[in-house]
């Protein structure tokens, strides 16, 4: 028995890698359906966005990169889909260079139109960029949404937007046009003109900075989606009411998918994550049993 435990302690890490790989990949192909329970944190976020009147303008701050895509991209897609279906207009920005491109990727992903483009009043509108189609609803670039791109400067960009959005973002990402030429930007001069901020964050700068500057200083309601690693850090802001909802990690993304009524990637990936969690726990239990079994024996020997 002692030898078995010693072998278990000295197990090749490639075996652990293989088990985790199988635990993550097999459930994707099994098509297992799981029931996701919506937590208070996500319900608060949903209540906040569902209470916004039609035509409200939301700032979507995408502060993440492809490394956090499995957790945050489903949140972006669910959020955009919900905004378009409920006629909520949105302005995309990023304090991370990759953020606005991740937003573009999410918009292309949720677009359901098969055609490449249409010509409307002499303008060529490309699906997935100029025109996003979600079921019977559409969103048009410049009118219903706009992508202002990335701006360097971290939290000072938020502070600058507090007095002038144009000073922080002079032109948009796609066309390079001055922001005041877009219909959606009409009357949007400073941060407090937004009805809500939806922040997707994977670190610094991110949710902490949006709460400290946009919420506390300029009094704009903010809901956030965070990676599972970052979420515990922002729980105090949720408890104090400074944050209007929080989605943590893939579980938060799956809950958002459930609450907006469109189960997608995060719900599917939750099966894999569940399997991986179970195996990690099993590894810890086995590791501890083996550790104590061998430690006890060696202690007696010694």
């Amino acid at each position, binding site marked *: 028995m002692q030898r078995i435990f010693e072998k278990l302690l000295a197990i090749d*890490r490639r075996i652990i890698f293989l088990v985790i790989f199988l635990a993550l990949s097999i459930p994707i192909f099994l098509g297992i359906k799981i029931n996701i329970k919506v937590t208070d944190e996500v319900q608060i976020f949903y209540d906040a966005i569902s209470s916004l009147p039609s035509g409200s303008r939301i700032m979507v701050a995408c502060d993440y990169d492809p490394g956090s895509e499995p957790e945050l991209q489903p949140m972006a897609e669910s959020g955009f889909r919900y905004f378009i279906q409920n006629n909520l207009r949105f302005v995309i920005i990023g304090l991370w260079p990759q953020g606005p491109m991740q937003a573009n990727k999410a918009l292309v992903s949720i677009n359901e139109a098969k055609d490449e483009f249409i010509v409307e009043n002499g303008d060529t509108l490309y699906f997935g960029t100029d025109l996003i189609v979600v079921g019977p609803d559409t969103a048009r670039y410049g009118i219903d949404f706009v992508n202002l791109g990335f701006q360097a400067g971290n939290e000072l960009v938020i502070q600058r937007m507090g007095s002038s959005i144009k000073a922080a973002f002079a032109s948009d990402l796609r066309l390079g046009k001055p922001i005041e030429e877009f219909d959606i930007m009409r009357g949007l001069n400073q941060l407090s003109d937004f009805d809500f901020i939806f922040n997707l964050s994977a670190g610094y700068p991110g949710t902490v900075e949006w709460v400290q500057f946009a919420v506390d*200083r300029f009094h704009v309601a903010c809901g956030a989606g965070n990676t599972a690693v970052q979420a515990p850090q922002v729980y105090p802001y949720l408890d104090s009411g400074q944050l209007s909802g929080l989605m943590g990690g893939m579980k938060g993304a799956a809950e958002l998918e459930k609450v907006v009524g469109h189960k997608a990637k995060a719900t599917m990936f939750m099966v894999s994550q569940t399997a991986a969690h179970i195996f990690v726990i099993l590894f810890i239990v086995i*590791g501890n049993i083996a550790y104590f079994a061998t430690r006890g024996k060696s202690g007696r020997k010694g």
Partner: protein
Amino acid sequence: MKREIPLILTAVVGLTFVVQFFVPHYPLGFMADMFSDWFSIIAACAIWLGALNLLKISLNKIYKKDKDRFYAVVTIISFLLIVIAGFFFSGGRRFQEPGTSFDWLYINVYSPLSATMFAMLAFYVASASYRAFRARNAQATILLLAAFVVMIGRTPFSDWLSGVFFLPEGWQISNLSNIIMNFFNVAGQRAIMIGISLGLISTALRVILGIERTYLGGD
């Protein structure tokens, strides 16, 4: 003057940002906006500086025939490829627009590579937890139990497990996980945040008042 001018600049900028938080009127609000713009310009230049520095270090490695020069070659080729794609092959459109060659590289090369690097963490976490996560003493055992509850509680598996053990309503694993996150975690995080904030305030005051001068390169 070589030391006095940076100290005066730091004091003026620092004090302006502190005071304008409470008095956001002219001229303090105007000054804070101006300093914010300057900061954005410096930050944007720093990105270029970082990119050029990366290029310089990589070229040096190749020139000195460093044992890691193969990676330096890959870095330089990748760097040039994405810069050239962005500057010269966007077809008259903005380089980040969907459909450009820069966007193609971002979606099909950078994005999967970056996600892969991050995804590898799952394997290392599993391996490390097997080898290092031990209930050696009371504190480690509490940490271990809390980790178990949160890890299981954050998955739909917890509801099934709670049912197997006939756990009463309110004492199910997902509820216990929420209690740990909303009470114990919040209390701990608040303490950390208050501690960090106090440290930041004292350091900022030392810098603004010119007591802390290490950022100038001296002692």
